[in-house]
């Protein structure tokens, strides 16, 4: 397995280079260094001289991808792309275009993101598995039919609707939790309740249907028929056999998103004024801070690759038949 993991990490290098190139090209096709300088220096009384100085200080006055004036390897190394990309592979994110240490900011802002995403994940898993299993248990009954109908309806509603509706009903009409905001420590609990609940409710439709399908597929297998033939009660069949085997695809699906929980949610964090990494990324895009954008995209890619690797490893742990070579 060790050789496999090393090989996967080596595969990751060209993927990350590719991601970095695409991010770089997309960003600089839309924004020129002059645009970025203007955005950072403000709108009033910005001189060309100030723009040039700003670019020079951040290395944005260099050629973008190729320095035809330079000699030898400097043709590549004396470019914005090279100088901004290489250190990312050492996880040195450097400074944002407004001068702040990106690593420090990430280390500070990942906790609010995690405070929403982790409870959301675990509570969601518990709720969706319960609902999925219940619908499977009552398969082909009115409960199942109406459950699926409600799930489809809930899937069809925009996530934004849940956020605004949740804020309105629970925060504004019922006055049970603050509408938005965040705090540290135990004070954060009252702010976390609503986004977690909304995230949970918003995911019921799609996740329950998915888990129901998984459980129904398991219920059609021979070992379930054998269990029933042995005279086991339906509860026993469901909870001891179907649930255990149904958890394999569910858990491997969860493992892949575990690292991405750090990255936060763009919309939720914005609506609830949560200072997480999701809003960090959104702010960077709107303020055209390339240093942060490229760092967050790079970090997201690395975490996704790690997630996929963890998924593969988790297969071997939950299913002894799978071996990584």
């Amino acid at each position: 397995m060790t050789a496999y993991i090393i090989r996967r990490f080596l595969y990751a290098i060209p993927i990350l280079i590719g991601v970095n190139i695409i991010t770089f090209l997309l960003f600089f096709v839309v924004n020129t260094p002059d645009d970025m300088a203007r955005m950072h220096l403000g709108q009033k009384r910005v001189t060309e001289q100030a723009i040039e100085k700003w670019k020079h200080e951040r290395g944005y006055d260099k050629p973008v991808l190729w320095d035809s004036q330079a000699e030898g390897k400097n043709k590549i190394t004396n470019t914005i792309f090279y100088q901004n990309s290489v250190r990312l592979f050492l996880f040195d994110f450097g400074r944002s275009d407004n001068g702040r240490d990106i690593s420090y900011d990430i280390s500070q802002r990942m906790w609010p993101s995690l405070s929403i995403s982790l409870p959301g994940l675990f509570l969601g898993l518990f709720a969706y598995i319960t609902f999925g299993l219940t619908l499977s248990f009552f398969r082909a009954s009115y409960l199942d039919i109406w459950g699926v109908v409600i799930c489809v309806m809930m899937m069809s509603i925009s996530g934004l609707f849940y956020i605004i509706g949740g804020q309105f009903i629970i925060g504004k009409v019922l006055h049970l939790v603050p509408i938005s905001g965040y705090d540290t420590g135990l004070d954060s609990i009252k702010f976390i309740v609503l986004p977690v609940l909304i995230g949970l409710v918003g995911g019921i439709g799609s996740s329950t249907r998915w888990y129901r399908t998984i459980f129904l597929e398991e219920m059609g297998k021979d070992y379930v028929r054998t269990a029933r033939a042995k005279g086991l009660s339906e509860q026993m069949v469901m909870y001891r056999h179907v649930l255990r085997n149904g958890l394999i695809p569910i858990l491997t699906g969860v493992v892949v998103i575990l690292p991405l929980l750090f990255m936060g949610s763009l919309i939720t964090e914005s609506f609830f004024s949560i200072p997480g990494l999701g809003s960090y990324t959104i702010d960077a895009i709107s303020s055209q801070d390339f240093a942060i954008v490229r760092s967050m995209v790079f970090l997201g890619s690395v975490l996704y690759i790690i997630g996929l690797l963890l998924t593969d490893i988790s297969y071997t742990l939950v299913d002894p038949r799978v071996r990584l070579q």
Partner: protein
Amino acid sequence: MQIIHRIFILATTILISACSDSPLNNPYPVEEDNKNIYYDTFSERPKHLDPALSYSSNEYVFLGQIYEPPLQYHFLKRPYQLIPLTATEMPVPVYQDNNGNVIDEESPSEKISKVIYRITIKPGVLYQPHPALATGKTDEYIYHTLEKNDLKGVHVLADFKETGTRVLTAADYVYQIKRMAHPKIHSPIAGLMSQYILGLTELSKQLAEEYKNAQTDEASYIDLRKYDFEGARTIDDTTFEIVLKEKYPQFLYWLSMSFFSPMPWEADVFYSQAGMSDRNITLDWYPIGTGPFMLSENNPNLRMVLEKNPNFRGETFPIEGEKNDAALGLLEDAGKAMPFVDKAIFSLEKESIPTWNKFLQGYYDTSGIVSDSFDQAVQLNAQGEADLTEEMKEKGITLLTAVMTSTFYTGFNMRDEIVGGESERAMKLRQAIAIAVDFEEFISIFANGRGLPSQGPVPPGIFGHQAGEAGINPYVYDWVGGKAKRKSIDVAKSLMIEAGYPDGRHVETGKGLVLYLDSPAAGPGSKANFDWLRKQFNKLGITLVIRATDYNRFQGKMLKGTAQIYQWGWNADYPDPENFMFLLYGPNAKFEINGENASNYKNKEFDQLFGQMKNMGNGDARQLIIDRMVEIVRRDSPWLWGYHPVAFSLHHSWYKNAKPNLMANNKLKYKRIDPVSRKAQRKKWNPPVWGPVILILIVLCLSIIPAIRYHKRRERSAAL
């Protein structure tokens, strides 16, 4: 054990919260309920908190309370009036000729070679507690020679345990003026001030050279004290002089802006140390001032907290104001020591809906009104005036309105072959479009009536603006029934015929006239606006093509002079007509010069009059010149004039001393809050409603019954 302990703490906290008399949806800690704290919002992270850099109103909200320039605007009096802040009295300029002789203010400009402003500051003014000023037993600065090891574990300014203060000196003001020339700082007004402050250009060059050499060192600190500078010098501990190259009466307004705040050299030394910026500890993040408040928490991703500066010298509320101020209760605090609030918490709110709802719940003391909430908050009364809805009145909310010292306009690029130029044809075309584009309708549809159609470049409240019949733009409006009435579209069509475009078609080729509007407003939200604009141009048979783009590209087009028609706006830096007229001053063109005259308008007479007007004191002579200038630009129509926005702000009943002041940045010290009333209202407005929750739980519980029955039935049924 530890887990059980934590669960216990958690459960106790929840229980205490539930049992306290604070509403459950209170976003603030319970212990803040009775405190004298002002709550407000901000929606965008301040880019800069360095006073030499900051040039944005969302930054002034914080900086204005921390830094103290020599002058300030009177809080109550109108028209806006400058008064001393840290200065002992208003500085009076002294004019000198080439030989150093004092000459009269009214002397011709060419005779004036120096204008000297001597400013004396109040004695005994202290800086806020700050580590940069912390001294040891032998008066040496504790944190001025830090090694990298000393900074281990330091991430925020509060990690420095020791703080100190010292008395404000005149040298601190001089130091800050020199900072404008610092090559690392990029002060946005360095270019403008170099035109006026004697020797600032030379100092910039000198510092640039020094900085180039200093960059080899890690710290790259330049001690600005050692540079002699003609433009600003210290006379004694409390007196300094600023020397201008020419007459510039508007300079006094600049002296009320944070650019001219004092900066202790110690702060520069402290923040310039190696390793500080690596830890995000910079002057741009942690200000140091003498004002009534200090920034105790700078977390622009969550909240910004201003706390009362314990070293503040004390200042009293104005004892006089406008005629009605006493009747409105605005002089109740006259003569009382300020500031009134102990703390101000500004929470980040990016979305308007949560902000509005939290204001209605009493968790913000004041709020603006976004379009989505306008109908809920405001209704038009029988006279067509804005009034609060019953819902707002019941809550005791008050509405204040003020015409902003801003203008939003649609401009023509005067370099354009079709719409630009000085020809009679182009002028008539522009005049026709100015009549056709109905800004009254625009304000009604898109601004909920919150605006005044512009009659010229100078907004109401600024000297030079004429109200009533004398103030209407005769090329666009008639005076009918005591108010301005837009000319009929037939007049515009006649002008189109005279311009050679009958029914919007070229008189010779017969081709339809197609014009292009560049706008930075892209996205679905702007579609209705663009559709409306197309409709307006279509009244004259003109096809308008919208080229929507992002703001940066838009700026690029404007710099290259390639846009044909564009939309832009301007917020006044100071209440003087010069600050609006310069938007049409030829040498200030956007094209090639990168000035603020985005239309690249150039009129010899206007430019000449501008030169005269800008240096005059307010009076009849100046008004005459302004009238003539306004007449010229109305005739030439480089703009469609657009509108001046009207700001609507709402305040809760516990918020005192609310009066719109669009010029002052240091308004927090005047605000007074009644926390007892606020707490009572919050409790009244936010009772927890558990009924629906209990109902949902009951329904969920009951739904288990048929499921159990179904399950039992299935268990009992025979297999097929």
